């Protein structure tokens, strides 16, 4: 795995990912996730839905296509929830801000001139690709961040044992590996033909979170 993937997946990467819970805060506030028992199912489901979509687009972006606006529009069409789009673009922007300093490249300049606020998976893919990583590297980072963020949010929201939660994330290794391979296999497809796994439950939680966020104080932006 390319070192850039480690840098991007590091929780110390200054991309602002720590303010997003990936729907977990809403699930916790509604009593749908109460503790260690429910968390593995939440993480696995998230990985297979939103995580799969993120992996697919990160892998495609790692091939550094020229039509960034087209790739962005295709991901938008697969992200019907405005709250999910906002969260993705917010994380993309934060990740890109740190990324252009780390791996400056005319490719990133072209991306940002076509799409000023790129989606998170496309940002991860573009940065990995520019740094010399592969589509599988980018997919692994996107898939990993799709679960590591909510996992660390769970520690903060529910006061769970960090060792236990960390073990849950490690338990997803095989799943993450096959997902990255699968996403790399579709990376070169025309953007319109890329897989479009939906996540209806997460979308509804994201919309509810956005609504509650305006009404009461929340710890996480999403």
């Amino acid at each position: 795995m390319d070192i850039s993937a480690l840098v991007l997946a590091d929780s110390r990467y200054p991309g602002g990912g720590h303010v997003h819970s990936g729907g977990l805060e809403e699930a916790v506030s509604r009593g749908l996730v109460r503790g260690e028992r429910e968390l593995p199912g939440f993480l696995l489901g998230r990985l297979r839905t939103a995580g799969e979509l993120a992996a697919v687009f990160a892998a495609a972006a790692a091939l550094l296509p020229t039509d960034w606006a087209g790739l962005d529009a295709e991901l938008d069409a697969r992200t019907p929830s405005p709250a999910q789009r906002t969260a993705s673009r917010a994380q993309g922007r934060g990740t890109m801000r740190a990324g252009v300093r780390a791996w400056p490249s005319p490719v990133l300049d072209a991306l940002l001139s076509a799409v000023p606020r790129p989606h998170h998976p496309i940002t991860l893919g573009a940065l990995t690709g520019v740094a010399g990583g592969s589509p599988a590297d980018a997919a692994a980072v996107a898939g990993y961040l799709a679960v590591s963020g909510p996992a660390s949010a769970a520690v903060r929201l529910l006061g769970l044992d960090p060792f236990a939660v960390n073990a849950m994330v490690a338990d997803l290794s095989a799943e993450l590996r096959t997902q990255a391979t699968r996403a790399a296999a579709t990376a070169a497809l025309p953007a319109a033909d890329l897989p479009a796994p939906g996540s209806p439950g997460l979308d509804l939680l994201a919309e509810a979170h956005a609504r509650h966020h305006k009404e009461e104080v929340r710890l996480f932006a999403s």
Partner: protein
Amino acid sequence: MRARARLVVEAVGPRSVIRVLESAAPLTLLPRRGTRGAAVVHLVNSAAAPLGGDHLTLSVEVAPGAALRLVGVAATVALPGTGRSATHLRLTIGDGASFEHLPEPTVVTRHADHHATLTAELTGTARLRLRETLVLGRKSEAPGHLTTETHITHDARPLLRQSLTTGDPATDQSLAGLAGHKVLTTEISVGTPPPPAPVSGDWWSLVPLGPATAPRGYLATALGPDAVTASARLGAALAAATG
């Protein structure tokens, strides 16, 4: 069984006229006579279908300015057969044309292994209203495998692309997937202005469809433990659209 049915509707003055009506068993198309304005066609399954191994395609073209309402069909997806079954509904909706299809729920029975694809290509001011209700198994029945794929484009740009797979407990039960609900219902409306901001409640939402700067319609989504609850939640979402 492989079958391809085809339907073409054109506008003649204020009326919509059926130009092509090609049924292909088990897809039988029955026009309703004496309708004003929009053409109305009933889609009837003339055999038990889809059976495993079936590949059924229905192509519908609504020419510019024409209107069509496709009625039916109550579908119980995929009875056991040889292999995977597939259905494909292909819609082409021209500028100023409209198409409406509000079929009965699709029940994903235990032995289902079915792939349902919908592609809709819209042009200009085309209007589309489409409802889909998935019921995961009959009462106390585990659902089979169903993959639905929805591809809607407007002036060759992507509006909505979503696929959903049922039959994997890890996603059926997960909060990310169907959150343990048995019924998922959605309504897509294109060519209707959405409310200024997304609207949501517990397990339902109504969101604008298309680019945030130029929405083209809305998508209403509801999950429920049963069809009645899901339908009531969808109703709450749609009420927000009509405001």
